[in-house]
């Protein structure tokens, strides 16, 4: 399949491109930018007049819910959501049932995903067996089976000796570890940020120090072991300060935030809206402003959807009993664009956080569109907008605090390995 994308505005953050450029694709790769290679004859011409052509999005956290939670979502439904959202690569955390702690499970997941010929799936292997924080997994075997890094998802390793050894072991092989900093004792029973809103609503709180204490402990262990750490879902200004200091000190640390924490804060819980029940909790507007600044200046390396489809039965409960999480694969691009609109940052800089910067965190060759790159492409209408509703979401999860919001950006085409995986006419 040879594809010619014409008349589009090419934004390729990794290569500093933001200009009208033709893009030529053959055999799954970019073969020409600006000028066609000699003798190029397209089978398909995509007219991208008025549209932005950018690298396919890389989502650093998307739960596909397989295996084990097929009643919440299936690989089919969520991969369809991914391409509809312009996402061409995604990282799935290991908190499935069973947990991704055995090579066979990872191979099966990779195999199932490959058969769908959709977005590239990068599983995170469990750092400890069953995420229980007691025994190490066969990390090297899991890596061979296709795990990109190792994680505890939302679970914690409470035993510091186990954590130290897990990090040492991962560092032995040069594996990166992705952890979410939350002190399990301070966060126990908590359902919302410990602050004014939780006090008013009588919700058990999770203090900011649950994040900073856990982060400090992790950073000490990074220094001790030399392991490369990716910090998932920083939620507070104080936590972000810790990250900035670690980076200044030259520690091998990266971090991400979710689209929810980029745009929302504790006030969005409103009258106990269970859609705003998230892990980590939404914090204050001052925290949100710090996260936005951090994302703009690069202290926060990447923005992710933290896609977590939840069935209605698990959300139609009082706030504290509702299952945490929000669907997000189809909102990653719109909420990146909304952030760009609000901050007036150049589109190239904002899109970098969901393309080239995310690829850098992952350590993969993706997220750019130079000649020779894999042809994972997102083509979207920056002026198009849509209202978030259960009907427009392809994900099986209809749970998001953005229900009813009018968001910018309509994906028109998603190309994966040079084939059209998603196409949406006007």
């Amino acid at each position, binding site marked *: 399949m040879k594809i010619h994308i014409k008349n589009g505005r090419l934004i390729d953050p990794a290569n500093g491109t933001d200009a009208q450029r033709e893009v030529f694709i053959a055999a799954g790769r970019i073969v020409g930018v600006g000028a066609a290679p000699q003798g190029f004859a397209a089978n398909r011409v995509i007219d991208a007049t008025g549209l932005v052509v950018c690298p396919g999005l890389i989502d650093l956290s998307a739960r596909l819910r397989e295996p084990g939670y097929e009643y919440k979502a299936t690989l089919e439904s969520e991969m369809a959501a991914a391409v509809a959202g312009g996402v061409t690569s995604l990282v799935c955390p290991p908190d499935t049932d069973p947990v991704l702690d055995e090579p066979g499970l990872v191979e099966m997941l990779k195999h199932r995903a490959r058969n769908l010929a959709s977005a590239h799936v990068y599983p995170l292997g469990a750092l400890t067996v069953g995420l229980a924080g007691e025994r190490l997994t066969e990390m090297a075997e899991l890596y061979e089976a296709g795990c990109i890094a190792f994680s505890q998802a939302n679970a914690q390793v409470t035993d510091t000796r186990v954590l130290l050894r897990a990090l040492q072991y991962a560092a032995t092989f040069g594996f990166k570890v992705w952890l979410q900093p939350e002190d399990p004792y301070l966060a126990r029973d908590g359902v919302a940020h410990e602050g*004014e809103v939780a*006090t008013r609503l009588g*919700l*058990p709180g999770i203090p900011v120090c649950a994040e900073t204490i856990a982060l400090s402990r992790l950073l000490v262990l990074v220094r001790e072991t030399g392991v490369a750490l990716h910090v998932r879902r920083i939620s507070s200004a104080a936590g972000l300060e810790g990250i900035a200091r670690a980076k200044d000190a030259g520690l091998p640390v990266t971090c991400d935030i979710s689209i929810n924490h980029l745009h929302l804060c504790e006030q969005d819980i409103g009258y106990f809206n269970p859609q705003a029940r998230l892990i980590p909790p939404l914090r204050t507007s001052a925290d949100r402003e710090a996260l936005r600044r951090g994302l703009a200046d690069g202290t926060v390396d990447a923005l992710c959807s933290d896609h977590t489809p939840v069935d209605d039965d698990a959300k*139609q*409960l*009082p*706030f*504290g*009993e509702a299952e945490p999480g929000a669907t997000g694969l189809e909102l990653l691009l719109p909420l990146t664009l909304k952030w760009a609109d609000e901050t007036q940052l150049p589109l190239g800089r904002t899109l970098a956080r969901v393309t080239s910067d995310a690829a850098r965190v992952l350590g993969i060759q993706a997220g750019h569109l130079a000649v020779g790159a894999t042809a994972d492409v997102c083509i979207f209408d920056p002026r198009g907008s849509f209202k978030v509703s259960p009907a427009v979401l392809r994900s099986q999860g209809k749970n998001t605090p953005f229900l009813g919001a009018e968001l910018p950006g309509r994906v028109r085409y998603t190309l994966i390995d040079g084939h059209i995986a998603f196409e949406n006419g006007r």
Partner: protein
Amino acid sequence: MHNPQLNRNGALQHLLTIDGLPREILSDILDTAAPFTEVAEREVKKLPLLRGKSVFNLFFENSTRTRTTFEIAAKRLSADVINLNIGTSSASKGESLLDTVDNLCAMQADMFVVRHAVSGAPFLIAQHLAANGRDHIHVINAGDGRHAHPTQGLLDMYTIRHYKKDFTRLIVAIVGDVLHSRVARSQIGALTTLGVPEIRVIGPKTLIPADVDRLGVRVFHDMRAGLKDVDVVMMLRLQSERMQGALLPSPQEFFKYYGLTADKLCCARPDAIVMHPGPMNRGVEIDSAVADGQHAVILPQVTFGIAVRMAVMSMLAGT
């Protein structure tokens, strides 16, 4: 954000929390309650205002006193009262909360009085009723988690007004386990809305919630300093579970520093009143000499509670 307690005309559709209700509605409830206090003194203690209506007491958490006072209030208004003690949390086993509600709706309920261990449960029910076009059914929050207990807050306001007449010159202190107290939150909401100029909360740091000053209160950790010149002392119940979870060392130490004794009460104004939502733990948060003393208005609170609940029910039934 639309306040789900009010209907399109701004009238009270449900009573879920005091927060966000205008002062007029609170005053209206207190004014409506006044004549109901006399009904109890008649030979026939009944009014026909809720005749033919079915009131479901839906208690997901055990309670004897609150359920009984709601039952008496509804019966004095001639309603049919059905008591359901479900007892366990909705998520843990069996039928979901909203399935229970749907079933009771199918039994032609007119009003739900809901108590639930989880904050926000009555909101979920009210939102569910609205989403299903059941605007004729009213919800009264009889206590949800740590969040709110609005009828308790209102009966406390009725009591204060009865003894002190004017809210706008008072210093009121709320003492004890504010962190876990839905009563305290409703009291703070009501006192601020009714224009009390100084509200204090008194307790050890482990029992004072984060950023509580943002609710418009002053925080004291020294009880004598906090009680200085106050007109109203509102004691909170301390539950024995608080000794677990490293919140407090012992009931004895709590009593010594935060229990209301005649000696500590001397810091307050000589005509101060002492209130307690019940049930009291004598010797833990309050000394018997105070609980039974001349400043205490704890039993009148109970009597006024029935009138206030009658007022709320009759007003909701009228919308």
